[in-house]
Each structure stands twice: as C-alpha cells, then as structure tokens.
C-alpha cells in the first residue's frame, strides 16, 4: 500500500513471559493511583473540591458510619456473587451478558413467593424455597441461549442481551399486576410482617447475605478448581478442538455450565430482593450484571481477586454517590469514575503481557 522507504518504527511491541508477582503488584498499584488521580481531577472539575477532600468525602460515604460500612460490605458481596456466577460461563468464553435478566427473573420469582406465601409459611422454610426457585428460574432464563449456543453456535452475547430486555418487560408486567394503587411500583413487600425477609443474625441485618455469598464463592472455586466438570469447562475455554479430541461432550459442557451460571445469577436476584431491597422493579439488577462481567474478566476468574475488585468498585460507587449528594448532583458520577478506573486497569494488563522495545538506531532495517 504505502510506498515509503523502509524505516524502522520508533518502537515495537514484544510479548514477554508472565510478569513476576512483585512487578504485577507494582503495576496494579501505579494504575490504581493514576486512575484515582484522574477521577479526582474529574471531581475537582465538577465540584472544585481539592483531591484530598474528594477522597476524604468518598471514604466517609463508604465507611463513615457502621451502617454505611455494612452497606458497602453488603453491596460488595452482591457484586462478588454476580461475578462468581459469570465465572463458569466466561471460562469457556461464553459471553454471558444476560446476568441482568437472570437476576431480574430470580428476583421476580422471589418477590412472587414473598407476596403469595410470605405470611403463610415460616420464614426459614420460605427462604429455602425461594433459594431453590430463584436458582431454577435463573437457570431457566439462561437455558435458551445455552442450548442455541451449544447446538448452533448462536451469538450468545446478543442473545443474552436481548433476554435482559424481555426480562425487564416481564418484571414491568408483574409490577403492574401486583400494584394495587396504579403507581407502577410494588412498594416494600410484607412491610409489616417481614415475611420472607432475611432475618437479623447477631443483631446484624446482612450477615446472611455475606454467608450465602461466601459459601457459593467457595463452592464455585472448588468446582472450578478440583472437579472433573470444572476442568472440562476450562478445557473447552482454552480450545474446543482439544476438548473434542479428549472426548469431552462440548455441547453438554456448554449447556451445563451456562445453566449453572444462570442459576447463581438467579440466586443473586434472591439475595437482592429477599435480603436487601424487599421489592422488585426493573432497577433491581441496576447494571451490576454488566459491571460483574468486567470484574470477572479482570480477576482472571480468581474469586479472591474478585473480592478485591468488587470492593474497590463498590467503594468508588458509594464514595461518588456521597459526593454527588453532597453537591446535589445525580449518582451517575459513579459510572464515570468506575469507567475511568476500569479503563486504567484494563490498559495496565498490557504491561504485564508485553514489553515495548525502543529502537535507538532508526536508520535502516537490518
């Protein structure tokens, strides 16, 4: 195409072996620092706060009172749970962008059970029923994309995305259906009886949330790491051809793991509805399904890294909301800051995998 004289470029990019752990940590630290700086600049631009008080204010928003700390912990757990739910699907390169929908459907089934059975069955039994049903409903919601991906290699990204919108409409339908006051909102379900609500344990409201998330996270970790099925999942992700050669039933592995992924997302909906908001609306998933995709990817499917990243994102989110409300601005500031941070962390991966060689003698090629 270009008929220029051959000239060596200023630099070129070479792949390198995996970076050592201290170097990786250094990269991450520098990246986070840079990202925080840029976010502070943005907040400074909007609110004229100096960066130090920006982060003081953010810290107050996330950990200012013990209630706020608990809310930060609670939301970290929820984001972690959704990220964990995506792991079985993502590890075999099935881009499940449908966590939003699966959460909604899981939450919807939970809300339905709370409404119809909330005052008739003891809460402990009801919680178990809701847990099972929400998992089944979440799995059901991922069934079609899973089957079509396994059989016809249908693009799962778009399929699951579209399922999100179908789920939103179903939720809207039931919100209208249950809403007796024509206000297009269900309100707090079982406000007085607290039927189907997560009980307080040791006087704390969110202990059960944390417990459920921890148990599921550990279970998924063991499944991925030590079980035959988890191993098959990883092989399919690395190379479908290898998996076939090894006699793995690829469509079956895809189907089962996507169903598992959907089931856990459904449980996330259960935790959200029965354990946190006690209501259902099209905002129940609130974009967490998308954020979790990035958390899952950044963590390279390692649940323990996911905890750190989820906590970081939730911290920023709470902090940014605090600043927004201090200044009477809307909460979308947190989306901007999350975006900035994620861009930085995503870019930083490059420096772990590649090396830039600068050419000193830029005259002629060898």
């Amino acid at each position, binding site marked *: 195409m270009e008929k220029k004289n051959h000239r060596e470029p200023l630099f070129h990019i070479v792949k390198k072996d995996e970076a050592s752990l201290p170097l990786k940590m250094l990269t991450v630290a520098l990246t986070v620092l840079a990202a925080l700086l840029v976010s502070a600049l943005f907040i400074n631009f909007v609110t004229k706060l100096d960066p130090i008080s920006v982060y003081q204010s953010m810290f107050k928003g996330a950990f200012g009172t013990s209630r706020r700390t608990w809310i930060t912990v609670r939301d970290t757990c929820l984001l972690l749970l959704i990220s964990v739910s995506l792991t079985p699907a993502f590890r075999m390169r099935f881009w499940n962008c449908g966590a939003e929908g699966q959460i909604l459907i899981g939450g919807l089934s939970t809300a339905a059970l709370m409404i119809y059975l909330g005052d008739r069955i003891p809460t402990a039994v009801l919680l178990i029923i809701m847990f099972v049903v929400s998992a089944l409903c979440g799995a059901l919601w991922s069934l079609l994309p899973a089957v079509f991906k396994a059989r016809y290699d249908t693009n799962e990204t778009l399929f699951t*995305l579209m399922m999100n919108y179908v789920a939103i409409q179903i939720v809207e339908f039931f919100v209208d*259906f249950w809403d007796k006051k024509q206000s297009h909102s269900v309100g707090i379900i079982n406000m007085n009886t607290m039927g189907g609500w997560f009980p307080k344990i040791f006087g704390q409201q969110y202990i059960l949330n944390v417990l459920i998330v921890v148990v599921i996270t550990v279970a998924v970790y063991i499944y991925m790491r030590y079980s035959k099925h988890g191993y098959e999942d990883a092989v399919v992700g690395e190379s479908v051809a290898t998996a076939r050669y090894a006699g793995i039933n690829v469509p079956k592995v895809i189907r089962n793991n996507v169903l598992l992924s959907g089931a856990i997302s459904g449980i996330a909906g259960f935790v959200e509805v029965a354990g946190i908001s006690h209501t259902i609306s099209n905002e129940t998933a609130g974009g967490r399904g998308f954020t979790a995709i990035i958390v899952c990817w950044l963590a390279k499917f390692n649940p323990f890294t996911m905890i750190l990243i989820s906590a970081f994102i939730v911290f920023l989110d709470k902090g940014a909301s605090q600043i927004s409300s201090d200044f009477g601005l809307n909460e979308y500031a947190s989306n901007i800051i999350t975006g900035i941070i994620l861009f930085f962390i995503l870019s930083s991966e490059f420096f772990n995998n590649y090396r830039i060689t600068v050419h000193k003698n830029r005259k002629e090629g060898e």
Partner: protein
Amino acid sequence: MGVSQIISWFVAAITFGTVIMYGCIGETINQKAGGLNLGVPGVMQIGGIASLACAFLYESSVSNPSPIVGMLLCLLSTLIASALAGLLYSFLTVTLKVNQNVTGLTLTIFGTGVANFFGGNMMKLSGGVGTISVAVTSSAFRAKLPFLFGRFGTVGSILFSHGWMVYVALIMAFLIQYFLNRTRTGLNLRAVGENPATADAAGINVTRYKYLASLTGSMICGLGGLFYVMDYIKGTWANDSAIEALGWLAVALVIFTSWKPKNATWGAYLFGLCYWAYIYIPMEISRFLAAKMKLQSATYMQNLYKMLPYIVTIVVLCAVSKRKKKENLAPSSLGQSYFREER
C-alpha cells in the same frame, strides 16, 4: 385502526429506526474491520450529550442564536466527541490488545455515566434551574423538507415529514454498502476483518485500518445519539437510559442485517414498527387478552407487547445461526485482537 393512526405509527417507526440505523451502520464498519464494539450504547450517549451540551452553551451565550449555526456546532461537537470515544476504544483494543467485549462494556458504562451525569446536572452546573431545552437548535434538525412536505397523500406524509438526518441515514447506508463492496479501501477493510494476518502480508496497514474503522464507525454511531437528542426527543434530556436500549438494538440490527448496511434501511424501520407496536395494537385485542388472563386493566398488556423488538431479534439471531449461509456470517476475526508475532 384508522389511516391517521397507521401514518403516525410509520412516522414514529421511521424516526426510531433512524437512530438505530446510524448505530448499525457505524457498528458495521467497525465489525467489518474485526472490532466488536459493545460500546455502541456508550458512544451514542456520548455523541448525544456532546450535541446537547454544545447547543446549550451556544444558546445560552448568544442573545439571538441562529438555528443553522447551532446545528453545525452540534454536528461538529458530536463528531469530535464520538471520534474520541472511538479512539479510546481502538487504543485499548488495537494497541494495548485488551479484550474487545470488556472494553466495549466499559465504554458503555462510562458513556452512560458521562451522558446522564452531564445531561441531568447541566442546568445545575451552569447555575440555572429547571430542565434543559435547546429548542432553537433542535428546530434546525427537525425542519421539514421543502417542496415535498405535505404532498402526495398518505405515502407522502409517511415519507416526507421528517428532519433531514432521516434521509442522510438512508443515503449513508447505501454509500457505506457501496464503499464496503466496491472500493479498494472498503475491500481492504474487510480483508483486515476477515484475516488480518493475510491482509498484513498483502501490505495493508492493519493497525491503521482498524483505527480508522473504529473512528469512522464511532462518529456515525454518535450521529445516532445526536439524532435521538435533537430530533427524537426534541432537544431535551431524560435520564431514562433509553439511548442505551437503542444502542443494544443497533448492535442487534448489525446481525439482523447480516453485516450489510443496505438491509439496515428496511431492518431499522421494521424494528421501529415492532418497538412502537404496543401503542398501535388495537385495544380490542388487549382487552380480549387481558380478560383471558384476568388482568385488572388492559393497559398491562403493553408491557408484554414491548418485548416484541427483542423477541424478533432473538428469532432472527437463531434463524441466521441455524442456516449458516457463508455470506451472512460475521467477519472471521471478529472480536480478536491482532498481534503480528502470533501468526
């Protein structure tokens, strides 16, 4: 259903379709070069908010704003802002080789944040009160066609009662179709998307093509956002994430059209018809269904009708993947980054 209702349904569908047509054309260019940009909703929102901010600043700083100047400034700011978003995407995915899905989704989160933050707070940030409205600039985008508007009966009122960007989208669809199939640059671009290593060996500058495709594609997507803000919602802003839903439909439309912009000309309008169907499906049907399902009110059915565009997309998606005709498939290297040393 009367004639006037049919007219208003089609008019609404065409306005709606134009938003996603821009998004679809832009994303097609990007995908043809191998870039699966899931940031379309984000780019559209960035493009939309850029135009709104620009029009707002212009209208509030000049005592007697001119629609034409406002329009040109809007176009310029949208193109610049969405090109920057495209640049960010291509820098991350092409140069830094970050996963495309993740980068795109982050761009969507970021774009949603930027658009709704500034859209919702612009009044507050500039010290005013009330909701934002840029009627003067918007009027330039919504000006009807001279000579044709108001003639040719029913067909005329469906076809000729739109702002000029509707027709630009149509022309652009055919131009891009021609560009991708009949020009050397277009064929090179497709080669990059099908097999970057071969294209590289043939002397095509893969990096440059990917960058330019992403930049041009994003600019066109941004125009979709601009059209949404200036024409569809008439120069106002609502924090309802409606553009985001439209952006995903635009991505779906790319597959629906099997990567052929000419198909977007009717596909987009078809999506529009499906999207607005919930208003135009006769009440008798809703009442009948509502009675069958023992609903309190027939309007509840509208929630279910609103699924239509998404279900249509799903059905098409499945049908296309089941048939697997070669010419309807995605570019082979779609979604993968290219690293020379790895061939």
